[in-house]
């Protein structure tokens, strides 16, 4: 008998009586007008910075102020008009080891915790939002939902090959519970919320 069969048969024999899966439980949510302020509070609470802009071009202008060297910014959203577009070579994430800034589209935001969904479909390589020093996310305001329950209701049933909720810059508190921002991932995280699409 293979281990697979052994495990499954033992589980079958020993498992407790099945109960139905709880469904359609309604949890309190964040009301529509409260979503943006709640999101901002959560994201900044996690050490991130929030900017609210009216269009993609104005993000470009803001980036110019923040990072004066466009060659150090990898921008996956051409309409922003600032920084370098990713090219084929970066399929190997290793070449990004010294990347300063990555600009990435977030397709969903969650008000209760400031998490932003980044899908593999929107990034040229999975490691991009982790390996950069400074992560800039772009999130349409219309895509902010109240809670994680709503987030999973909206995400596609057939998940992308890879997707991640990102809630702020990387962090650790492993040494004496002192919070240090910037562990292995970005040391800073910025989100620009787009008022219009």
């Amino acid at each position: 008998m293979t281990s697979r069969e052994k495990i499954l048969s033992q589980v079958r024999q020993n498992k407790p009586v099945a109960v139905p899966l709880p469904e359609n439980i309604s949890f309190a949510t964040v009301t529509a007008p409260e979503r943006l302020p709640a999101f901002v509070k959560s994201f900044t609470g996690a050490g991130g910075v929030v900017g609210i802009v009216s269009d993609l071009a104005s993000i470009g202008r803001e980036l110019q102020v923040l990072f004066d060297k466009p060659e150090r910014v990898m921008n996956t959203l051409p309409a922003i008009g600032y920084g370098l577009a990713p090219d084929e070579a970066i399929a190997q994430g290793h070449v990004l080891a010294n990347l300063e800034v990555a600009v990435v589209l977030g397709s969903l935001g969650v008000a209760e915790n400031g998490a932003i969904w980044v899908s593999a479909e929107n990034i040229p390589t999975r490691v991009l939002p982790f390996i950069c020093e400074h992560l800039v996310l772009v999130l349409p305001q219309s895509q902010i939902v109240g809670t994680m329950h709503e987030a999973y209701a909206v995400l596609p049933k057939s998940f992308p090959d890879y997707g991640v909720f990102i809630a702020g810059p990387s962090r650790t508190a492993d040494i004496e519970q002192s919070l240090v921002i910037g562990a292995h991932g970005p040391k800073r995280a910025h989100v620009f919320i787009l008022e219009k699409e």
Partner: protein
Amino acid sequence: MHNEYIIPTDHATAAEVFLQDEERANWHDKALWFIREKRDVATKQIPDWELLRETASQIKQNVLGNLDNYLEMFEQNALQNGIKVHWAADAAEHNQIVLNIIQQHGIQKLVKSKSMLTEECHLNDYLLENGIDVIDTDLGERVVQLAKEPPSHIVLPCIHKRKEEVGELFHIHLGTEKGASDPAYLTEAARQHLREKFLTSDLAITGVNFAIAETGGFVVCTNEGNADMGAHLAKVHIACMGIEKIIPKAENLGVFLRLLARSATGQPITTYSSHFHRPAKGQEMHLVLVDNGRSVQLGLKDFYNSLKCIRCGACINTCPVYRRSGGHSYHYAISGPIGAILAPNMDMRKNADLPFASTLCGSCTNVCPVKIDIHNQLYKWRQVLGEEGYVPATKKQSMKAMGSLLSNPTLYRIAGKSGRTMMRLLPGLANNKALNPWAKQRDMPAPPKESFRDWYLKNKKQHD
């Protein structure tokens, strides 16, 4: 044959050693209580927190009652996604599977993010014996790895270490300045040191927080980003999980991700909640499903629901005994209350002391996000251990004697009277620190001249 067994360093002995440095014990207690308080603040912002806990507990109940079906469904979907699925009946098989994959690729060194399962299986030691260099990349885990110690906490592996000690370790191993202990400075040094490891490792091992039967994908949660850095930069990603980590649907993540980080550290969510469904182009993705005693535990009526655990560590942070004895005093991969009810499933003899390392205060049960009745299980384990002969014979004999004495009102009264008389006449004996562990650091109560019963007979009965 009576199978009495005395553990070389049982919890009580290890705790006594831990408490010899009282100032340090105070610091340890406060560090963990601080996290408990952050957890309280975070949970109180969710008005339907208790409903969330109840829902999570029911989802897990559904999982355990259908575990075979979900495992098969998960396997089928994961295979379709291009993930290679392996089954390991025990720790040895798990380690063998991982080593085989490593050797097939001719790999010598690898990075690993936190996985309590691999701790349980002692994977690091096994790989090391086989000439593989394993680098733990979670900061806390790297610290204990450099110190050649096991983690003392499932979420905060080096919570027992002071920053000066981390500074000294980093000075020796990473070349940081002598005497430097600023956490930001030390974290930056670890970042530089580990980034080089990420960039040069062809294989990454991660744990799994949740595996979704319906979609054949799995979720890994970290704050540091180390699981992603490792997995995305490696050609081969191996994810290892216990079979109980399955959840039925992606939508269930809504419940669990709301609970996990709030319970663990008081954050509303971990910085990264990564959903892996298919390997990247040119990458290989493996998933190892490990039983290692779980399918047996599933059949124990009183104990199976500890398989609901999502490894948040809330019970550890709140445990007044853990805070004052340290994770290593539990001598098992998972410390604290949850460890104390999981460990006897693995080895009753070796872990017989752990269910007794508790006052049964019940705080663990109240913070558990999946409502495991931890303190009741501690009580029930005590009964099993008593029945099976794993409680020291002296304790058993005294309990037997006490049981007979207290079942007999006359004997009880004689013993009580002589006890009180003795304490009145020889208070020094009752307070003798060597003979009476109570009196080592506490005074005995002053014995009254009569019992309540005596008083009652004198003052009440006659008036009736």
